[in-house]
């Protein structure tokens, strides 16, 4: 169910009415769970519920076990089970292709297994499962198990809510178990922060339906072999256009998810913090898909040793973390390369991080370089076949004499302006403070106007494929 569909809107209204109904106030968690199941009816709900059930059962063993050693064993088992589920559904073909050159030569049973499609959202809800056990292992089960009579029933409900909560189910933000569990309590209608929710939803839908859904009509021509006939200027415009599109799509989704969660009294973590004004790659990863960065940092990078050991080991840890982070995005070598490239950039820039002066010109140059390299790296997302990426770059070099495709260049630039403006506004706000309330509200009204009158054709969110 897309956030931009009428079905979602009807579900949201119905859930909201039931959730804040005084008669049902004891069942708020259950209402959200039912709504989440309805939300996920078309995305392999049986697998999803099975994963939740398995996680819940393993966690019950932890909750009912006094031995610290058993607790750790069950927690490791829980983490292992989630990794196996994710690996099977997401990486089976990739792993098979490492050992078998011709997958079409396999028997019917193997072919059938390899043809099982990737369930939407699996990368996110298995990560939530991992967080559940990792947090219980590191901080103790008490942060998750509620200390109430008949606690285990509430624990099961809380785990179901944590894993199924529909605003974040399919594309995050990834919220750590401890961060959500402590928020689970009765929510009151009077506590709703309408202003913040309006701003989040308007900004989210604007980025998604106006910016991303319109940009996709142009960046579609980046695909092979269409880019072969386009001018160099067009191809360069598309690189930055796609960079804007992927930001608008993902940031838009996260803003909508955060706004919807807030409607029910839950705070999801901020997932994007103006990433394209980053002056370094380490800053970029503190601003882009923050919930994933935090997850990888806390559950992979730090356990590997982080930056507490030698410089060489730190670089290795960065490469491993980012490469696996790339692989999380997709089961293809292009994503491995993308992650590895970011890991290498992080490792290489590390010794020079504090060497630069912080004046306007140097900062501008650094922002431009990071933005350019990040945008080029997105080509690996748009063109998962690495040979097509090479051909694309060659086409930029070879197609200089072709006539410019203004019909593509101008719309790409115009639809990218809101993304640029969003980042420039943040820089301006850091220096000059917030704008007058009237101006801010007129801007939001303008965005709402464009959502109604300028929405592109509906498309699933880019990050659904991960």
């Amino acid at each position: 169910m897309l956030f931009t569909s009428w079905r979602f809107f009807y579900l949201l209204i119905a859930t909201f009415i039931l959730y804040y109904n005084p008669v049902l106030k004891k069942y708020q968690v259950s209402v959200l769970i039912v709504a989440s199941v309805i939300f996920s009816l078309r995305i392999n709900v049986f697998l999803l519920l099975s994963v939740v059930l398995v996680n819940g059962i393993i966690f019950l063993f932890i909750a009912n076990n006094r031995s610290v050693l058993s607790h750790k064993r069950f927690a490791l088992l829980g983490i292992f089970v989630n990794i196996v589920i994710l690996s099977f559904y997401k990486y089976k073909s990739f792993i098979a292709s490492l050992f078998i050159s011709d997958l079409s030569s396999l028997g019917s049973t193997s072919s059938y297994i390899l043809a099982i499609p990737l369930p939407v959202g699996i990368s996110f809800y298995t990560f939530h499962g991992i967080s559940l056990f990792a947090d219980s292992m590191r901080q103790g089960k008490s942060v998750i198990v509620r200390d109430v009579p008949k606690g285990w029933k509430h624990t099961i409900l809380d785990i179901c809510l944590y894993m199924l909560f529909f605003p974040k189910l399919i594309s995050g933000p990834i919220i750590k178990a401890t961060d959500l569990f402590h928020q689970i309590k009765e929510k009151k209608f009077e506590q709703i922060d309408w202003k913040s929710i309006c701003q989040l939803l308007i900004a989210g839908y604007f980025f998604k339906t106006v910016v991303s859904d319109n940009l996709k009509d142009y960046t579609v021509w980046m695909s092979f072999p269409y880019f072969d006939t386009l001018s160099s200027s067009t191809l360069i415009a598309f690189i930055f256009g796609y960079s804007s599109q992927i930001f608008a799509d993902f940031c838009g989704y996260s803003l909508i998810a955060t706004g919807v969660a807030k409607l029910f009294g839950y705070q999801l973590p901020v997932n994007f913090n103006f990433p394209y004004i980053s002056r370094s790659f380490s800053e970029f990863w503190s601003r882009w898909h923050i919930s994933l960065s935090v997850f990888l940092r806390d559950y992979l990078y730090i356990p590997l040793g982080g930056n507490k050991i030698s410089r060489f080991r730190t670089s290795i840890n960065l490469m491993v973390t980012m490469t696996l982070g790339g692989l999380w995005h997709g089961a293809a070598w292009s994503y491995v390369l993308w992650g590895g490239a970011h890991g290498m950039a992080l490792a290489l820039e590390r010794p020079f991080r504090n060497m630069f002066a912080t004046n306007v010109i140097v900062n501008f140059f650094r922002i431009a370089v990071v933005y350019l390299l990040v945008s080029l790296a997105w080509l690996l997302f748009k063109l998962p076949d690495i040979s097509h990426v090479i051909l694309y770059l060659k086409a930029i070099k070879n197609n200089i004499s072709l006539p410019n495709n203004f019909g593509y260049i101008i719309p790409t630039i115009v639809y990218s302006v809101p993304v640029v403006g969003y980042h420039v506004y943040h820089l301006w706000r850091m220096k000059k403070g917030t704008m007058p309330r009237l101006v801010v509200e007129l801007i939001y009204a303008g965005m709402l106007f464009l959502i109604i009158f300028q929405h592109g054709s509906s498309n699933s969110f880019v990050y659904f494929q991960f």
Partner: protein
Amino acid sequence: MFIFNFKKNIIFRLFVFLILIIVLYEGSIVIFKPHTPNPVSYDQYNISKAQQFIYDSTRSAIVLTGSSLSLCFDESSRPENISNLSFIGLSSLTGLELVKKSGVTPQFVIVEVNFIDRPVNKEFIDSLFKPAWTLRKYVHALRSEWQPISVLISYIEEYVKPKSTGLSAMDSQPVISKELLRVNLEAYRNGKLDITQTTNILRQYIRHFEEKGTTVVFLEMPVHSLIYNDDRAVEFRSALFKDFPASKYHWILFGAAADNETSDGLHLNAAGVNKYVPLFNGRVRAIAAKHASVRHSEHALK
């Protein structure tokens, strides 16, 4: 009441500002009457063309339905009485469904047969006729051609490149892309064409229009010889001729396009347009004239 408290209720304030912006925008369209901007995306092109047909009271006597292959009749001079309902990514069937649903009875309907196996896009048709959206007839801002950012883009394009329609990127390429030809040939061969089902569906539409007195004309757009002579194309062409013979129906046929007349094997490039559009115009005029003289004779006899 808090709900209508402008100072305290942000949602109410946003709503008021939104209404203000809508009124200002609609007012500027109605008062200043700017020229209709060119569509800037394929989706907008399809939707605005369909909306113009539905809401435009001066509809043409001749309606052309087809796919993006027939778009070229938009970009050059065409006979004045033709409404071109060729939709990018769709087929004649969608155009025929649109004409049928709008209740219009043209004198002639020209049916492009090249991609007629693409089924009717029901979502596209339904979105045009949703009850709530009849407002579009009276509120121009709701129509696809007046999407605010698209208007801005269109005017910028005119300033930068006066003759650009924003959609002729393919046509601006002088040389056929071998890779595109290969991809299009492969896609054509892999298409799920059920000849019997397609001709049955087409027959229903033809019957509907003939019962209303419309003359049906079939058009086969010229495509690269590799696609034109493909077994699938030959088989389909034979089935169409059998069901809709030339003895009973008008056919506008051009044969295969030469190597240098399409940009990707399917769409005519500038050279192709210069050659085939005048031929098409001539054929349409001849068919219309023939029918006009037949009617005149019948009228005289009465």
